[in-house]
């Protein structure tokens, strides 16, 4: 299975290596660097590379490449999912998964990696179990450690791995027992030039933050579970219960986790919260172009659209932009040719507008394509699909937990073609 792992930063330095079988020289990464050169953009590096003796599988996350070396047949997704799991775990531990953080906690990271794989096969990947074996650093503990010379290795032996609920650690205790659920929905949409919908769908996710003492057994039910078309669950959810009764019944892991993701059935028409009127044109002669964008609310269910942000990847020929925004402000990055207009809250009375001229490199041909607009926004306290949590019940423990559900809608891959 997974033979070795190299962590490589954006510029191509290998700053961590871990081998689970015999050592493989880091020169194997040269093949990767070659591919990286060729691909120009890091997103375009092929995830799977073949070298004479090895296969390299890499993921790109947080400006870092996680490069796994394998020697024999293995499902590629297995490796990719595992690498993402590593990144998730590091994020969990240190709150961030960047080069600096990893370098600061090199020994801890190395130990985590040691525990996650045995002979290249995953051993303990649940962060609840890992955190029992290798405690995540906290400010208090790092202070204590520097004074006493202690480390983050747990001094008690973990039991989580041995229990039949591998995702939850034993002996959880809180003074305040609370369970929060965030229902977050994302609208993926492609709108065409005229504003009509080419494609739209709603993807949802329920993020949970559960801090409950003991072994609580939770049941979450929805008012309208029929809306959900396709779902995937955290392993703690009892699938049979869902199939027969459409309720989520589970013993939660401790802390933050993703309870489920879902897709709203495609029969329902997707409400598009905003409309965009845009006109971007380039003159045939004379090196300039015009830009005029107006955004207005469409179907917002009476809520306010916030955090509105428009991103446009301009053609390479556009040199600069001279625009005026009636609301918010804009920046144009000359190097990446990205125009960002941060609108903020959408005011239905006074629609935000951005207009002005673009100057194009003289002599260059008129850009072929009009750039498409990527839109970001969020609407608080609304699940655009109409999904509603009915109730949350707890069994198995006596105390009364504090419960809360929050809804949020935001734009996923929301694109307007021009």
């Amino acid at each position: 299975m997974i033979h070795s792992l190299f962590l490589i930063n954006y510029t191509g330095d290998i700053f961590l290596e871990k081998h689970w079988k015999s050592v493989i020289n880091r020169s194997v990464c040269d093949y990767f660097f070659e591919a990286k050169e060729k691909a120009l953009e890091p997103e375009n590096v092929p995830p799977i590379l073949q070298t004479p003796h090895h296969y390299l599988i890499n993921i790109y996350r947080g400006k870092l490449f996680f490069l796994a070396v394998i020697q024999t047949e293995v499902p590629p997704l297995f490796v990719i999912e595992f690498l993402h799991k590593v990144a998730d775990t590091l994020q969990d531990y240190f709150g961030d998964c960047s080069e600096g953080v990893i370098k600061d906690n090199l020994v801890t990271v190395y130990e985590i990696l040691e525990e996650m794989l045995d002979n290249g096969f995953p051993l303990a990947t649940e962060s609840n179990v890992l955190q029992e074996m290798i405690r995540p650093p906290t400010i208090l503990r790092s202070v204590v450690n520097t004074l006493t010379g202690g480390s983050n290795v747990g001094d008690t032996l973990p039991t989580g791995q041995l229990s039949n609920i591998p995702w939850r650690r034993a002996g959880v205790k809180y003074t305040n027992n609370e369970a929060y659920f965030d229902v977050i929905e994302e609208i993926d949409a492609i709108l065409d030039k005229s504003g009509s919908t080419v494609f739209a769908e709603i993807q949802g996710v329920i993020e949970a933050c559960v801090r409950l003492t003991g072994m609580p057994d939770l049941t979450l039910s929805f008012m309208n579970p029929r809306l959900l078309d396709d779902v995937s669950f955290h392993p703690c959810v009892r699938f049979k219960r869902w199939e027969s009764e459409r309720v989520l019944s589970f013993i939660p892991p401790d802390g933050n986790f993703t309870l489920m993701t879902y897709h709203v059935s495609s029969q329902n028409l997707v409400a598009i919260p905003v409309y965009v009127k845009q006109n971007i044109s380039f003159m045939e002669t004379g090196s300039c172009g015009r830009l005029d964008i107006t955004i207005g609310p469409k179907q917002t269910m009476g809520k306010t659209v916030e955090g509105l942000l428009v991103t446009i990847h301009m053609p390479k020929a556009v040199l600069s932009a001279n625009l005026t925004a009636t609301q918010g402000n804009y920046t144009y990055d000359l190097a990446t040719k990205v125009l960002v207009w941060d609108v903020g809250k959408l005011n239905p009375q006074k629609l935000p507008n951005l207009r002005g001229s673009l100057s194009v490199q003289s002599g260059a041909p008129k850009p072929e394509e009009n750039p498409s607009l990527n839109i970001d926004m969020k609407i608080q306290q609304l699940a655009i699909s109409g999904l509603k949590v009915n109730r949350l019940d707890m069994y198995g423990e006596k105390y009364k937990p504090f419960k809360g559900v929050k809804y949020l809608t935001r734009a996923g891959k929301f694109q307007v073609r021009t």
Partner: protein
Amino acid sequence: MSASSAFNDEKGGSSSVGEPEYGHDPASGGIFSSDYKRHDDLKEMLDSNKDSLKLEAMKRIVAMIARGKNASDLFPAVVKNVACKNIEVKKLVYVYLVRYAEEQQDLALLSISTFQRGLKDPNQLIRASALRVLSSIRVTIIVPIMMLAIKEAASDMSPYVRKTAAHAIPKLYSLDPDQKDQLIEVIEKLLADKTTLVAGSVVMAFEEVCPERIDLIHKNYRKLCNLLIDVEEWGQVVIINMLTRYARTQFLNPNINESLLEEGGSGDKTFYGSDGNDDDDEDEEDKEKKAEAAALAKRKPYVMDPDHRLLLRNTKPLLQSRNAAVVMAVAQLYFHLAPKAEVGVIAKALVRLLRSHSEVQYVVLQNVATMTIKRRGMFEPYLKSFYIRSTDPTQIKILKLEVLTNLANETNISTILREFQTYIKSVDKDFVAATIQAIGRCATNIGEVRDTCLNGLVQLLSNRDELVVAESVVVIKKLLQMQPEKHSDIIKHMAKLTDNIQVPMARASILWLIGEYCEHVPKIAPDVLRKMAKSFTNEEDIVKLQILNLAAKLYLTNSKQTKLLTQYVLNLAKYDQNYDIRDRARFIRQLIVPTEKSGALSKYAKKLFLALKPAPVLESPFKDRDHFQLGSLSHLLNAKAGGYQELPDWPEAAPDPSVRNVEVPEWTKCSSREKRKEKKVEKPFYSDSEGESGPTESADSESYSSSGSDSASASAESGSGSQSEESEDASDSEEEEEEEDKKKVWKKEFKKLAQGSESEQSSESDERKRARKSKQQKSESESETDGDEESDSESSQSESDDSESEVDVKNKKAVQSKAPSKPVIKETKKEKKEMSLLDLDDFEPAPSPQVTPVNSFLSSSLVTDLEGLSLSDSVLSPAAISPSGTQKCYELLHRISGEGLSVEYCFSRQPFGPDANMVAVQMHFANSAATDAKNLHMEDVKLQSGMRVTDFPEIELLPAGETTTAVMGIDFCDSTQAANFQLCTHSRKFFVSIQPPVGELMKPVFMTENEFKKEQGQLMGMNEITEKLTLDVKCRNEHAIVQRVSAAANLSRVPCGSDKECRFAGRTVSGGSLVLVTVATEEDGSARLTLNCEKMVIGTMLVKDVLLALTQ
């Protein structure tokens, strides 16, 4: 050297790990001077007594390793600390050892003994980690030690250690492949493991060590299917992939009838060859397929193997997994194994994965692309999910494009083309080129839109971007080749383009096109040649070659106009710098220009140049990739990766399905206590999955054991299974409480059998009959229930066994289904089980009743043989005898008086869970009437004062011909008074009564000889009853006495020094008064029975019973 300075830097503190490595430490001096003592400080720290210093040093060393710096020279200093008490230091030392042991083999051996000690540690986690590190040390000398450790760990009590053992197997195998045979044995053993923790890891080991030994899977197949949902994610992936391969070898192709007809014919046709000018081999293929299909149609209709169904059903929920690898694994399983109609379910899940990380998208799209070629319909509803966003990475865009192209058909082509139109305007030129290619493919595949596409492409010819134009030209060229005669105007248009287009490939394509179809454009062609001749010297090589080609073709068709031009061009080419072009020119000249020297070939020049060329087939690069297992690395690379296991073809005829029947559940030495605990907790979690495994499998005994104490309903369905299997199962699993419920059912089965074979039994030996008679008498005297004494042979049979000890019964059971020639093996097996029972003593037994099946298939001589065997063991442990003995069944309701409903009861000698003061009474209901009995319950209980009854739960329905059991509890208040009540069905009420024999009113107590004597001393005088007796002839050994006494009364044996005395102890169930029995034997067969009990009534009654038991 930078490293050395870095360490000096790092002294500052633990946080400095990530600091720049190029510190300037004056002490480090020159480049080489510090080298040989560069780690001195670390060594010093490691040698110190302080744990904190050691820890600090180890941290810095591990940080070096992590960054890929060499720290091997510290090995001696580090290895010394392997036995360090501090767990943190120890862990880091382990990390170091695993990394460097290979390089420093001799020194590494110093640490081995520490791990060997660790393997014996009482803590399972320490055992596991010792094995883990030991097996990770890649030193060949320790192979035998590793082998031993793995073998031992494979039968460890803790599933976690067993899991580690499974992980160690591939490690050892890679170190020394010669150990394969031994390792396979271990794998076989671990495959039989029933815990979810082990399943994934052992299958992984199986895949790495012996993937070809598919025969090892047979017995575990059903178990793996049933466990699958509870295995951790990574294990699921491995198991599913392995099972896919397994299923391909064991089951028949579910699409055997329709697939060939539909897919082989129409499916491919619409794609690649509606024109009729297909390649020849494709036609042949078609023919072959048709013939095959015809042959198949004659076969009998396909019926899916229940095991095949089981696999499909149990993997389906995993499509909802959060782990993309699991979803993909299930998807490929369905793609390769499911009937065509069912494959569709995977589409939705795969489309969901497209929301995931781009690397996941990349892999999924590759697989979807392959799937869409074979099963286009599956993804058609999700067409829009493959629409491309401008922010997608190029490689994703191109894959999505591939999928969209594969999905295109007559109905959706207009939408797809509209999408394509947007894509053509993209900034990403690679993507645009791919889009144009895609349009070309759509045009070839779908006849209706060919003209539209062609027009669109022609429009693109006026695009400003040269790359777009060039790509279009290339595609148009291919399209035109299919029907050139209609499109002379397009060719003309393209001829005009030669003035503008500079991209060599495009120019070459145009020239080729004009040359090929010069007859359609007779006027333009020579003119183009003229222009080209002018610019010949400035052209690219590829264009020059095509100019030569064009010239040659024109010369052959239109030599009048172009003769001179051709000569000119050939002359130019003759002096070209490129030898390829010079060669070509010489060749063409010889061929087309007739000279006296040119031979036979020139006659055929026209045929050579203007032969009808087949149109190119535009096909997906993903065609035929599905011969690789989907989701595999090999599929993705379209090349066999090392260690790839071919997906076998479906077998022509299904191999014997009975190999998967599980006959003897492997006796794993793992403590069942461990397992049981798990099961107990597990039940509420996972029991939901059990409903699934029920209905269709028959004789699937494995599934029951894996699902713990399964409901009787599930096992009842297995009644149709082969009886021999079941009975064996029952006998073997007897001690395992989780299987007790199952037993109930087995017992019923036996009863049925027994009823059926009544006539056969009449031919039994006389001896036996005699024994039976005597027993019958005994039962009459014992229980004064005046139930009809014409009781059917069942009850009398059951009594006939009473005298025999439970050991006999066990033996008999063990033997009854196996051939009687194997008693010895069975015997040893039994021994083991008793051992395990012993260490389970403290575990509270479940309240479920135990009734041993009654059987009479054995000749009595065999029984005595077996008795002899068991006697040869030195001392019978008291625990082995006491708790579950043979039980007599008493009649509660005869089937005649009960109008078809017959009820028996027996005393199961198990503690009654809800109330410790009650005696558990197990009732067996058998409905032999033609109608169902409903709402069986108790009413109107009449009791003596003080007595209490706990009703059995109401039985809602007892269908005709079925049997069931229930348990009730009665507190008899230590008297033999009967409990009277009414047994009610929905229609009738029956008065019944239960009267206990006095021996059942007590529960066994375990005590030592000294305790016994002490207690006995306190119960003298009035409380002591002594009787003299002469022992029955057959009852003159210790063993027989023990058997008979424990059959008569629920007492446990007290260990005793002398072999002349047998002692038994118990307490009454509700009062808790001690009952002590002593039987002292003499040489001549006489004996003295002493009974001490503070309740004199009980005492006297019990003495009578015991006397009777011993003398008859």
